[in-house]
């Protein structure tokens, strides 16, 4: 089975996420900063009347922006979250068969390895397939946070 992926760069590295997770790609608009949130929460933007939170993936993954860094936002639909993910630039959309992907090697002591799901390599390319919810820290912490609301007896 083959899936379509969107490939993008962060600094010198190339990453990919399933195209299904991405709703659109936009240039970075005016961002209104937030307060009392981790630094990788860039702020909120107005996407045609909808307020979208933007997260800087480079900052989240501790990747230094390259000197000619562009700023692009991919709007991701990670149900129930609709997030803007700030990246350098979108490079390509690839259709890759599952068999062409290899499992990630066992790595010890590399903080970012958790979110890497698969590895894709050809002669000129080395792409890390990432689990976006995991990479952004939205895989469980927020979704299953028990509601603190008390019910009225």
């Amino acid at each position: 089975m083959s899936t379509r992926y969107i490939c993008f760069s962060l600094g010198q590295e190339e990453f990919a996420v399933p195209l299904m997770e991405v709703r659109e790609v936009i240039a970075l608009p005016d961002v209104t900063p937030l307060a009392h949130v981790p630094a990788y929460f860039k702020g909120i933007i107005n996407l045609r009347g909808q307020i979208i939170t933007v997260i800087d993936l480079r900052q989240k993954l501790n990747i230094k922006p390259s000197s000619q860094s562009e700023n692009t936002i991919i709007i991701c639909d990670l149900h129930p979250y609709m997030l803007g993910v700030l990246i350098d630039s979108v490079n390509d959309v690839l259709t890759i068969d599952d068999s062409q992907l290899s499992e990630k090697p066992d790595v010890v002591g590399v903080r970012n390895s958790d979110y890497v799901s698969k590895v894709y390599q050809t002669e000129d390319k080395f792409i890390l397939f990432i689990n976006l919810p995991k990479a952004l820290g939205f895989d469980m912490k927020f979704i299953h946070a028990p509601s603190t609301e008390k019910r009225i007896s």
Partner: protein
Amino acid sequence: MDTFELDLKKDFLEEATQFLEQAERFYLELENNPDDTRILNDIFRLVHNIKGSSKAVGFDELGGFTHEFEHLLTELKNHQLVINSGVVNILLRCNDHLNGFIRTLKEDMSASVDSNAIIDEIHLIMQSSSADSNEQNTETEDEFFFLDQVPDQNNFEDSPPGDVPSENMIPDAVFDAGQQALEEIELELEQTLKEQTIMQEQYHKSVKEILDAPTSQTHLHLIENGDSLDPTYQSEIEEVTTGSTTAGSATDSGAGTTTATATEAAGSASASSAVQTDKAPATGPQQKSQKTTFKSTKTLAQAKSSQFQNINPQTSGGGSSQLGPSGGGGASGSGSSTGGGSSAGGGNHPSPANSSGAVADESIRISLLRLDKLINYVGELVVLQAVMKELAIQQNSNILKKTVHQMGKVTKEIQDISMGLRMVPIKQTFQKMQRIVRDTSAVLDKKINLILTGEETEVDKTVLENLNDPLVHLVRNAVDHGVESTTDRLAAQKSEVGKVQIKAYHQSSKLVIEIIDDGAGIDPEKLTQKAIEKGILRPGTKLSNDDGINLIFHPGFSTKSVATEVSGRGVGMDVVKSNIEKIQGEIQIETEIGTGTTFKIILPLTLAIIDGMIVSSGDEKFVVPLSHVHETVRMKQGDLQKSSGLGNVLLLRGETIPMYFLHQLLGRSDSKHSAQEAIAIIVRNQGHVFSVLVDDIIGQHQVVVKKLGDELKTMKGFSGSTILGDGRPALILELEEMISIGNTTTQKRDKSTGKGMAA
């Protein structure tokens, strides 16, 4: 299941939910006016509708239960069962059961719900009453025998008027049974005709019309049009007609002047009524079969009496007198129930189906999601319009300015309308309170008179949804804690019946809801005492009356030593308060010992738009809800005092008010302005006073509130966001929450116990 069927079912469930909400009010009304047959008829109509449609869309189990329920209602209508609170209890339980049933079906269309327990209860209450109504039963039997002979007598040209028994021998019960028969006929017809062509539908309509209230000549024409019907359908009618030969032949002989088709229609109708009744579970077989005969006769008589009048308008007086046994009798019987007892006979009696048609409102249901989308885009439109206005001023073109101005007006209009779409009357929520008061007072054995005013007051749907739980709690509290026990009331020389009033009204773009009881009031001394006992306050603490009363909002505080079924677990009032504050509302208490307590909830009419003050801090703009701003003060030399003991304080007209800097609260380092040029926003919230220093106030606008994503749920200090005129998003500040985080992170101030709790 195809989508069409699914849609039908969904629609039915939606509709049924509405019916049941209406029905609950009727039951409660019925308890107060057991003699009002109008209410009973309304209930009957609702339940019948549910029964009919549930069978039509394929919810047979539901149909089965409503059928039993309908039986009970029939007995009530026939006065075979006396309406008392026990019966109303059963009715309410049936309604609850139906509600639960429909909820279950909404989740899973193929779900099965066990109704046996409640059906048994229905049977039990019906049986227990049968002993009392034995006498009545024999009476009814007599009437059935008499009516059995009506087909012969209906040959009115032959039978002299003197032959007919006196009209008053036919009680309401008989008429009502007839009416019910009519309803059942309609239902049966609808089902038979469902899959026929449009032509046949038209025919069906005319049959229905003639059965309902055929008073005008047009109906007959419609029936005559039926002559050109599809032959397959006609044969079907004939089949049905042969099914009840007695009824059919009676019609033929009785209505010699009417067209053959009309007769057939009446015949088929009565035949189907016979079928319908036969299907009914035979609780009393003998009586049932007699009823069947009666129903056929009754229907024929009605149909004919009207036809007779239509054909011979000039002789209608004589006709109806001759028709005395059927038409006139029915009318006189109905006199008390619906007031339609004119000499015209039962034929033009308004049938329940007709009245239900009149009730139907000119409205459609729209999903809230679509509505929100619309409102969202309208918000965008407003923003774009503002941008355009700016541009028009720059362009200096008169025609552009004029057009933009016009557009602004239209936009405002659209915005108002779309906002209005979310407004719903508070009625539904109030009706639920009736039930809660009834149940709570029954458990506590108190007599409560509930008065509702302002049911039509409109409020945003989201506000209303969030209001439900707090309101339930407050009303329960009013009955439980507010109103004293009957003995205490008598001792205090009050009326035995406690009064609880719920009032809703608009006050300067706010919704105010008051829950008033005439109970013992709240004693702040006692509350303070209790709080000390519970270790909430330090022994010897003295509180002002207001602070004392506000203790009831303290988490875990309860004056009841034992938790009852109703309340007293100490969870509640704090949640009530926080729930109301969550929807930008506030709650006030007015109480007088011995006279009663009033809880006053003040809410914004809508959450979608707020009046906001736009302030700046550095380069950033923020919105402060205007409702939070008590006043604003431009800082002068010497207003701000820095002290090591109290932090920054504002000296205002002799008051010392804690002051916080917005840029510090936000964790920003830069502030362009010196504190001396800045503006202080003063917030007063139930005795808690503080001020926040901002760089400037940019303006006041109505802003459309946009939710922040769930990923920002953990971010404190903001209640939402909005889009400003320049198209950029801005955060809406929740100053109280913001300074409380500031307090925990920067300085822990020892606030007075009382104020800490009230806040």
